């Protein structure tokens, strides 16, 4: 029996190509004679367009056309609101190209098509636009106040949606409490900044009439549907391919972006391939943002620190439009109680329009903000009750025997009440305490302080509802020529290693080498049932579907092999790419031979086919070559729809030192204890976590999109929007805990976003701990710049 691949640190199938420079990202697709598009974008936040004249641009040699909304015909329509919800009372989405009004800096106004990118950029600068500017309010809190300038004249109070959810009876919980603590926390607006910006290329095939679109999307099947609908085509006449994608992190799940409409349109009009490759500066003002939320959270507790009730009201900045509905706010609201039992919860949010880039999920999707709110509040509660930060958490954890633990009426993004499926929360906390040696640290901290050094310890628990439905599919087929196994899903991959982890799952069932399992995703021409890659759902939902399909294929292989070898199916073993009778010492048949023999129409064009004829037939049938209900070859498809989300969790802790000279932070240790159920490939899990932590560090220290009061984005470049380099990221120590999820056949939970969620709180609590002797005010805001820390310390000094 070959060794089990599930759980092994298997090197990745996808790497060889990528390290040789043979990756195929959208801009690498060779498209002979391609034209290049460039958007002209608004440089004012909110204005009426009083004049738009593209004639100078259109006249530039090399320019084929400059599109404005007037050239769009039936496409000059509002883009869909992808995820409706009854609480969205004033849903607004944008047109592909602005009509007579712009709503944020960066909104597309015109689309230039030219022979190359250089000329297209020249032309875009020749477009004459005049504006009559309108007043704006960028500040989220003020934008939600009465009298604020309106983003949409017909949306009163700038409120797109408002949702109140209550689980339990919050009023009585607060009435009963010995102690109430309340805080306001603030997370700033940020951007995912994948290394590859957005990109679209399109070609209409004159012969087949088919539209092919290569797009750096996380949701090709959804985009295919949208394009078919916009261009009024049958779905099968549109093929969307997400080739290699250079990082996604959320914003690439949104569609259709203007480019996804304009590029195919221009390709049709000119009968030539057209491509548009977003550059970094426009990525900042075009690709969707996230993170800005302000939470006012209150906890009602007993003297012993048992939290009886939680009330959270938060404002969610949705930007100028709400194309993705309330997803981010809803996800935030559902994790607001974290890992804690808290039986009574009232959470209310308003999605507020501001004249800025629209907001859709970015890795974490509201969870980092909710986590920051609840964990900051727990720290404060501990402080006020004189309890230890670890102890107060321990006292409130949902206990292992309480799973599944449901929060009635708190409805998650899958339309079902929040139900934590499994976990060992206290054990994780204990593992962190041991790893950090909390008692020894306290002594170190004291000793350091005596030398004028400020050490601090921070921690954050987190939970993450992962693996959301509705469903995904998996397709498995054994190739008759090579015996390799092809696997398809409806997902895309932006680096998560699907080509390896799905191969591991299949390898275990079919007894083939991981390298011989070829996973093809992100191409609607190959497989087109499914949803997409987001919300830490790929491994859980597609992994399970692939597993189920592989189980079916396994049965087909065994039955066919048993027929061919004239043996009992129970005695057939699959290993090393062959099927044989266990213990017989005989070679048996290869997968290629079985696949060949399973197809009644065959020519002996290779050895496998020749050999296949030497065995008994693969199917026992006296009737027609394919029995009723049978299908040729070894091939299976199955689907998986989770009953509800699986809840991964973990706890991160850090020991940091604040340099009182620069307020720079040195992270001496960063420890992450996490549980994502059974791990398919720990190497890949660790990679996901390390990457997530790095993005979390970005959010904790650096990444803030700075809009000025007129609505211009001041730091729209990598020079000014600081993304951490290797020097800014600590080594992350990881401790794995594996509590299988009872919900799916493999017992897995998602891990894609876990690393990012708790980091801001870890850092805030560590710095607060370090600077406690200076009596700084509690930290309520991220990111935390050294300059900001300095101001906290100065203010504390003045107060004294």
């Amino acid at each position, binding site marked *: 029996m070959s060794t089990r691949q599930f759980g092994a640190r298997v090197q990745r199938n996808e790497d060889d190509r990528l390290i040789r420079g043979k990756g195929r990202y959208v801009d690498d697709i060779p498209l002979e004679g391609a034209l290049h598009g460039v958007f002209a974008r608004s440089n004012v936040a909110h204005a009426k367009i009083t004049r738009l004249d593209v004639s100078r641009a259109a006249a530039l040699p090399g320019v084929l056309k400059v599109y404005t909304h007037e050239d769009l015909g039936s496409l000059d329509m509002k883009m869909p609101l992808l995820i409706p919800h009854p609480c969205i009372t004033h849903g607004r989405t944008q047109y592909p190209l602005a009509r007579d009004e712009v709503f944020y800096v960066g909104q597309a106004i015109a689309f230039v098509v030219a022979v190359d990118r250089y000329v297209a950029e020249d032309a875009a600068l020749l477009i004459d636009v005049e504006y009559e500017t309108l007043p704006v309010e960028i500040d989220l809190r003020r934008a939600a106040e009465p009298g604020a300038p309106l983003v949409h004249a017909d949306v009163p109070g700038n409120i797109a949606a408002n949702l109140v959810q209550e689980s339990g009876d919050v009023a009585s919980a607060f009435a009963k409490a010995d102690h109430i603590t309340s805080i306001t926390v603030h997370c700033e607006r940020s951007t995912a900044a994948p290394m590859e910006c957005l990109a679209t290329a399109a070609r209409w095939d004159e012969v087949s009439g088919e539209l092919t679109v290569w797009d750096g999307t996380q949701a090709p099947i959804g985009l295919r549907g949208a394009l078919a609908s916009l261009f009024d085509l049958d779905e099968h006449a549109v093929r969307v391919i997400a080739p290699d994608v250079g990082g996604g992190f959320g914003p690439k799940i949104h569609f259709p972006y203007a480019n996804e409409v304009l590029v195919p349109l221009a390709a049709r009009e000119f009968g030539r391939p057209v491509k548009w490759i977003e550059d970094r500066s426009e990525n900042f003002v075009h690709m969707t943002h996230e993170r800005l939320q302000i939470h006012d959270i209150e906890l009602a507790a007993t003297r012993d620190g048992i939290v009886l009730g939680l009330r959270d009201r938060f404002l969610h900045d949705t930007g100028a439009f709400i194309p993705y509905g309330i997803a981010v706010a809803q996800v935030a609201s559902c994790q607001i109680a974290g890992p804690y039992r808290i039986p009574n919860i009232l959470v209310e949010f308003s999605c507020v329009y501001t004249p800025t880039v629209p907001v859709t999920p970015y890795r974490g999707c509201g969870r980092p903000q909710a986590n920051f709110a609840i964990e900051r509040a727990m720290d404060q509660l501990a402080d006020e009750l004189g309890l230890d930060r670890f102890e107060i958490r321990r006292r409130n954890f949902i206990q292992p025997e309480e799973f599944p633990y449901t929060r009635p009426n708190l409805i998650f993004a899958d339309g079902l009440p929040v139900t934590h499926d499994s976990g060992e929360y206290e054990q994780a906390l204990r593992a962190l305490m041991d790893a950090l040696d909390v008692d020894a640290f306290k002594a170190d901290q004291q000793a350091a302080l005596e030398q004028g050094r400020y050490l601090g310890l921070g921690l954050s628990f987190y939970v993450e509802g992962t693996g959301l439905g509705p469903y995904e599919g998996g397709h498995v087929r054994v190739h008759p020529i090579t015996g390799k196994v092809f696997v398809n899903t409806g997902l895309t991959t932006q680096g998560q290693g699907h080509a390896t982890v799905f191969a591991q799952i299949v390898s275990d069932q079919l007894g083939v080498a991981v390298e011989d399992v070829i996973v093809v995703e992100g191409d609607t021409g190959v497989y087109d049932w499914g949803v997409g890659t987001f919300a830490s759902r790929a491994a859980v939902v597609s992994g399970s579907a692939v597993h189920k399909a592989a189980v079916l294929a396994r049965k087909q292989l065994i039955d066919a092999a048993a027929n061919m070898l004239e043996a009992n199916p129970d005695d057939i073993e699959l290993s090393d790419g062959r099927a044989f009778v266990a213990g017989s010492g005989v070679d048996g048949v290869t997968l290629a031979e079985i696949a060949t023999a399973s197809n009644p129409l065959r020519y002996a064009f290779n050895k496998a086919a020749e050999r296949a004829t030497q065995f008994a037939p693969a199917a026992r049938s006296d009737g027609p070559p394919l029995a009723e209900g049978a299908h040729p070859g070894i091939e299976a498809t199955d689907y998986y729809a989770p009953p509800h989300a699986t809840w991964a969790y973990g706890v991160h802790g850090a020991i940091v030192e604040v340099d009182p000279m620069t307020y720079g932070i040195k992270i001496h240790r960063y420890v992450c204890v996490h549980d994502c159920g059974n791990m398919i490939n720990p190497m890949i899990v660790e990679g996901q976590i390390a990457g997530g932590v790095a993005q979390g560090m970005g959010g904790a220290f650096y990444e803030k999109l700075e809009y000025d009061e007129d609505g211009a984005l001041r730091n729209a470049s990598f020079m000014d929007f600081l993304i951490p380099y290797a020097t800014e990221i600590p080594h992350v120590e990881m401790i794995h805990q594996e509590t299988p999820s009872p919900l799916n056949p493999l017992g897995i939970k998602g891990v894609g976003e876990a690393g990012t969620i708790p980091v801001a709180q870890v850092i805030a609590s560590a710095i607060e701990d370090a600077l406690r002797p200076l009596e700084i005010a509690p930290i309520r805001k991220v990111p935390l710049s050294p300059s900001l820390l300095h*101001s906290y310390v100065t203010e504390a000094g003045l107060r004294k």
Partner: protein
Amino acid sequence: MKPSAFRYALPSTLRDAIDIRARFEDSVILAGGQSLIPTMNFRLANPEVVIDLRKLDELNYVRVADGVVRIGAMARQRVVEQNDEVAAANPLIRETLLNVAHPVIRNRGTVGGSLAHADPSAELPTLLTTMRGAITVCGPSGRRTIAAEDFFEFIFTTAMEPDELLVEAAIPALEPGEGWAFAEFARRHGDYSVAGVAVTLKLGADRRIDRVRLGACGIATTPALLTECERFLTGKSPSPELFAEAGTLARDAVTVSDDSATSKVYRQHVLAGLVARNLTTAMTRTDGA
């Protein structure tokens, strides 16, 4: 993000370069391109003419003689950094260069380019200023040498005439026994700093401070000489308290106001700390320390 079209000139002699520069109103010099090309890609600069100096071997040299390090404008920053003769003559040069951007940028970036660019946050202009170095420029009417202190006039503005080219930077060697230090604080490694400080320190036979040079980047509209601190320190006996006091005194040199990420008082605080810390480092590197 692609540059707009320009006339491209590739002079083979300095003379020709100057001629071309004189002929056009709106020309830029392409040295290492590490500051120029980003601004052209952003289309913040749309020059009529780009004059590429890469053929001018006559500007690509590093010489140490007579107590002076002479660096041709086209010498790559990395080459200077790795030159042991330079490091022996004036170790502050290497220490400063290590704080300029990242190695891959320094592979292309030139010393002349950084000086001509005159970013007050940049390290090399501060090095030159602190060291009381000199910058030689050359135009249609010949060469002239300008004291570094007079060369940098404002953000991105120098005493060069539009038809002149920067040809050489001269930096005095350190004297035997003279201590040195350059350190800065940036939010992210390799970035332009919140503040950076260059120091040299020489003790007299009486162990008092005989000569001290102190300069800073990132705090004003030009590289800043901390002359008041220098005066304050000269003749005194070095001590931690003295260095801390010098740091406090340096605060007034900060003239840039708050920006969105960095408040003025914070910059002052960092500057004060760096001054004290770098003086201490320099002190430990003086002979007999």
